């Protein structure tokens, strides 16, 4: 089994890449994807390779103010990083990210406004462009009471839409420090609380690594690989 996590390292989080790798190895992960907004500023990414048994992949989170800037930044970063993540903050950004085949993961489209869920048009575009939908289960630990109930409701609705359109799902703990990391089994148990099936959750935890493997290969156009 090869589980994989997407997280943030120092200076955007509060643990260095190697500390995250050490903790993740102890918990049973095989690889980590570090998705900082500024990947070139990660503190000592080379130190993480000293820890054997866990693969540290440097991806990137793309942020932009408007859909056009997002599109150009995504295409600029595509060649340099094997994994690109976009956090859905506004309706337009979610729509733009789902329509871009270069984006790998669109994380948590219900984070900015809990009442709104994944729209049908977005889901259809994500299906067409093979954009995976991510669920940040860290919110289950951050929030308490009614806000968590609302989050769970929104997540359940998103999950329904994602199942209807057969989108690929990803779950992550959204870790900002080594204390936020959760063991794969714990994360799957949390996902079950949020409405996932057990098998679905295990698949969702393995998907990011598969995406990285696909992106490492050289594609000339959709479905055509340069060997």
């Amino acid at each position: 089994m090869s589980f994989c996590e997407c997280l943030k390292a120092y200076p955007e989080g509060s643990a260095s890449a190697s500390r995250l790798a050490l903790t993740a190895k102890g918990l049973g992960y095989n690889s980590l994807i570090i998705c900082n907004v500024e990947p070139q500023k990660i503190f000592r990414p080379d130190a993480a390779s000293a820890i054997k048994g866990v693969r540290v992949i440097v991806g990137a989170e793309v942020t932009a103010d408007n859909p056009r800037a997002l599109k150009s930044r995504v295409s600029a970063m595509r060649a340099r990083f094997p994994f690109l993540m976009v956090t859905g903050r506004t309706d337009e950004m979610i729509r733009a990210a789902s329509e871009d085949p270069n984006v790998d993961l669109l994380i948590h489209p219900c984070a900015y406004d809990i009442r709104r869920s994944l729209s049908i048009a977005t889901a259809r575009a994500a299906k067409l462009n093979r954009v995976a939908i991510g669920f940040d289960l860290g919110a289950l630990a951050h929030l308490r009471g009614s806000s968590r109930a609302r989050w769970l409701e929104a997540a359940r609705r998103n999950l329904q839409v994602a199942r209807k359109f057969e989108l690929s799902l990803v779950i992550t703990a959204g870790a900002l420090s080594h204390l936020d990391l959760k063991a794969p089994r714990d994360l799957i148990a949390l996902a079950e609380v949020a409405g996932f099936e057990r098998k679905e959750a295990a698949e969702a935890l393995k998907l990011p690594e598969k995406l990285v493997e696909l992106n490492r290969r050289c594609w000339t156009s959709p479905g055509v690989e340069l060997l």
Partner: protein
Amino acid sequence: MRSRLPVLRARRRYMAFELEAEGTVPAKELVSEIHSAQVSLFGDAGAAQNRLKLISFNGKRGLLRCNHVHIDDTRAILATIRSVNGIRVALHSKGVSGTIKCATEKYLPQLGKISVENDGRRIELEEVSGCIIRTHGLKVDLCPDDRNKTKGSDTRYLGLTSFDLSGGHEDADGTADGL
């Protein structure tokens, strides 16, 4: 309450867990946090079906009793605990077993006292500077001079490893006294 019929006896499982924390956490506070997390996530009715009891806790590892059909719920409860009395913690489940003896032998190794060094060494690097709070094996916890460095994640200290600190200076591993 004891049941007369063995078939009506509650089936128990024992979950071994490990605690990672920024400070020391007393067992009493951990128990109350676990119970409040359970009630918050599953409500009183859910808590009645899965009565949790802390069997033992030594500050680092512990044993929790739960019902045999609610093992995953118990895992989820442990995963939602973020801080105990203001101290940032992480709880990881290690494994589940049917008896206390078996769980202890399998998942709770009898280690000696955890060696935590606390020395007033400082780190002065380009990107990060601060006091070392404690080191344990490869792990180094650092209290940064700039408090904004840990903003957002609610932690007090930065988590680093000794690999991060090597090569910072020509003659040293990055610590100010050249260790």
